[in-house]
């Protein structure tokens, strides 16, 4: 025992010197939490697959998180990474090798113990093109990914099972986002025998290591989760049962909540009822407001005249009356002045952005050679409230002489126009982009502002490509040491400030989340606006009316 302790201490000291190892600190469990009870959550739409390799909408995202676990996770209600199925991890000094020690005695819902082989299997599966995983691309930095993606290999050469409780990942480049990648659903661990048993229907028969297990799934009607009594994280979950009732309009869900029949309307407060709810103190008290990893912005095609002139793009930034635009959505947002949302690490609180200044905007347009403005097009997705937001933008632009005609189209058409270099001069991003996949500042750069996204079919609708910034981004992402996260965040802040100087976007607002709950629901407010669990963190909430 003594020897064991000594070696642990030595290892820890070594790790401290490197600053590269992290050992999991057990979560503190809410001392007020009560055990037991059941809650009901409603949704309008059917739940798509619960297969972690495939599910990729905000509705099944959080459900999958409760059925499965990954090597990494976030502290409840925050964006702070912590080891989960891993007990600890170690990063090599060059940032290219990640070694995870798995916790012992973790069991799948079928009773079998989870081991390093399952980790490897799960990663091989998600990257295999036959799985058709929308998240396969997240694993691009793992050695051997290209061969698996091209169908040339069945297994990732960069993932090695060292022993049943140790798994090693070798990357082709240092990747600071890799720990986040190990926390997204796509890397959650699945048992091979169950996947093979159910084949393409595994998503309907999910078996994981999570806090809950699937007890019932009646297509189109309800899904029932039951507490996993053998959950490795002692003391969790608090609830015995969660019933998801499917097929209920948000307005009906709100009525049922008011009558005390349900606990959380999963689709949120319907916009038409929002002001009514917020005007009633009793109801308002049960609404939790929080940030979202979302930014709504206008892209300006930097390869298309007159938006190839930075002064024109800056003028647009100054022409927008963001406060008025937010009124259109009942104040469910905060004004944005930079690409990153406020709840994202790397967000710069000190940055002031472009002021709302019509006179200065006009002067900039005149300097750019457009004293009388010009005509252009603003593309927008055709579902409410986006066309109304576009009209407000149109009016603001008209005030400085820019006559923008609104092209209100189906989502797919707007996305197609944005991915075509000659397609759209301006796009309002609402309803399409961008909510981060994981809470890391890099997630707002590569696909939507970096050169890699400025390709046909890509998401960089400004076609903004700044090679210097791309190099800086790569430099920032090679800082893998978690202890230097602050330094890395600062580098990212600087990158986004430079982006704002070039103004390929006009950031407009960051949507806020409003989760309404029944009076009997307990737990810290941040569990109800958890940045990675939408609408709520199922594992950590509890009900107050149980013994």
């Amino acid at each position, binding site marked *: 025992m003594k020897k064991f302790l000594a070696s642990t201490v030595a290892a820890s000291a070594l790790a401290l010197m490197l600053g590269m190892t992290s050992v999991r600190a057990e979560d503190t469990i809410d001392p007020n939490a009560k055990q037991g009870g059941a809650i009901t959550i409603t949704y309008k*739409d*059917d739940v*798509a*697959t619960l*297969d972690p390799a*495939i599910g*990729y909408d905000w509705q099944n995202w959080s459900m999958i998180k409760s059925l499965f676990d990954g090597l990494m996770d976030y502290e409840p209600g925050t964006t702070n990474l912590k080891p989960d199925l891993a007990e600890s991890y170690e990063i090599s000094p060059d940032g290219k090798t990640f070694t995870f020690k798995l916790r012992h005695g973790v069991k799948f819902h079928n009773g079998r113990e989870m081991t390093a082989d399952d980790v490897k299997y799960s990663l091989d599966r998600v990257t295999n*093109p*036959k799985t*058709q*995983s*929308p*998240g*396969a*691309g*997240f694993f*691009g930095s793992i050695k051997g990914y290209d061969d698996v*993606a*091209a*169908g040339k290999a069945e297994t990732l050469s960069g993932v090695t099972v060292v022993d049943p409780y140790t798994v090693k990942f070798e990357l082709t480049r240092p990747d600071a986002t890799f720990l986040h990648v190990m926390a997204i659903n796509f890397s959650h661990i699945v048992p091979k025998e169950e996947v093979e048993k159910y084949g*393409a*229907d595994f*998503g*309907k028969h999910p078996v994981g290591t999570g806090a809950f297990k699937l007890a019932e799934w*009646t*297509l*189109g*009607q309800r899904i029932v989760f039951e507490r996993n009594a053998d959950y490795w994280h002692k003391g969790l979950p608090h609830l015995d049962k969660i019933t998801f*009732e*499917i*097929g*209920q*309009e948000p*307005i*009906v869900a709100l*009525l*049922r909540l008011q*009558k005390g*029949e349900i606990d959380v309307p999963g689709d949120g407060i319907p916009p038409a009822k929002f002001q009514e709810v917020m005007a009633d103190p009793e109801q308002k008290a049960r609404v939790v407001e929080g940030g979202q990893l979302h930014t709504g912005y206008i892209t300006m095609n930097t390869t298309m005249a007159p938006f190839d002139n930075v002064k024109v793009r800056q003028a647009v930034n100054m022409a927008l009356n963001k406060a008025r635009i937010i009124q259109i959505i009942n104040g469910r947002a905060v004004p944005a002045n930079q690409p990153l949302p406020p709840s994202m690490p790397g967000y710069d609180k000190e940055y002031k952005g472009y002021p709302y200044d019509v006179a200065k905007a006009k002067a900039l347009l005149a300097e750019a050679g457009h004293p009388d403005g010009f005509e252009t097009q603003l593309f927008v997705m055709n579902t409410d409230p986006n066309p109304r937001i576009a009209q407000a933008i149109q009016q603001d632009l008209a005030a400085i002489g820019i006559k923008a005609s609104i092209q209100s189209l*189906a*989502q*797919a*058409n707007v*996305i*197609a126009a944005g991915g075509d270099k000659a397609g759209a001069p301006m796009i309002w991003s609402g309803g399409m*982009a961008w909510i981060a*996949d994981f809470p890391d500042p890099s997630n707002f750069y590569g*696909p939507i502002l970096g050169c890699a996204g400025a*390709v046909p*079919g890509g*998401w960089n609708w400004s076609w903004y490509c700044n090679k210097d910034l791309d190099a800086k981004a790569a430099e920032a992402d090679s800082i893998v040491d978690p202890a230097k996260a602050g330094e890395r965040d600062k580098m990212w802040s600087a990158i986004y400030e430079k982006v704002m100087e070039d103004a390929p976007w006009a950031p407009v607002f960051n949507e806020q989340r409003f989760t309404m709950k029944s009076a009997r629901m307990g737990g810290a407010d941040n569990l109800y606006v958890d940045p990675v669990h939408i609408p709520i963190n199922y594992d950590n909430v509890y009900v107050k009316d149980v013994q």
Partner: protein
Amino acid sequence: MIAYLGRRLIQSALILLGVSLITFALLYLLPADPVRQIAGRSATPQTVENIRQQLGLDQPFIVQYWHYLTRLVSGDLGRSYIQRSEVTELIVSRLPASQLLMLGAILCELLIGLTMGLVAAVKRGTATDQTLMVASFVGVSAPQFVVGLLLLYVFAVRLGWFPIGGYGTWRHLVLPSLTMGILGAGWYARMMRSSMIDVLRQDYMRTARAKGLARGAILFRHALPNAILPVIAMIGIDIGIFMGGIVVVESVFGWPGIGQLAWQAIQRVDIPIIMGVTLVSAFAIVLGNLLADIIAPFIDPRIKLR
């Protein structure tokens, strides 16, 4: 009769084939790329191409349609792009709910419509008649979305007589059936009224009255059976109207039928489900019409099947 049936069956099969071709072509021409939808925004171009190949969506239209048809013949409607489940399974699990709702709706529209029509015909020209006919007009023209929400608000939220949406007991069935039935009730009231007036004008009615039969006996024993039959024969055709209605009504009431499935699929461009529901609906409509036509001569011997 047999020859007629055979001809009608071939016609029906051709109609279904046409529906499948047109729907398939329309969905093919849709500018939304289903592969991008499945792949999500974080997919690399390589992932997108891989998925396109896996689904056979890189093939030309004719090949894709042919594959669909050959699988269809064996009852395979493919897998949903979004839910990844078998479309057949999704539809089969939801059909009973839609059938139940249709039965409820037929019951409601007959009860309400026939009663209204009967009363209006008897009270022809009076204020009652006029009120009922205006009411029937409102019933026909009121959007089902509004009717549904109104009924929900009054009878479920305010009065608490029925549950607020959902599925399971007979009490869940009442409001959605009523919402669907009100539309049909309007039509049936008008048809019943004219049919009844028509019958009341017949010579045999005058004879019955001349015999000194009681008013009730004349109405219920002699007039009603004759007036009601041509109206009832319309139920088969109603199925087409219902198929449109269930999309709205099922969404309002959270009724787990195929209408709700279709509405969700349309919003998410889940093409295999849209195709599947369209075909099943077309099948139901064709079948309904066929049945209506076959029953017609039994109800009215003047009609002959040729």
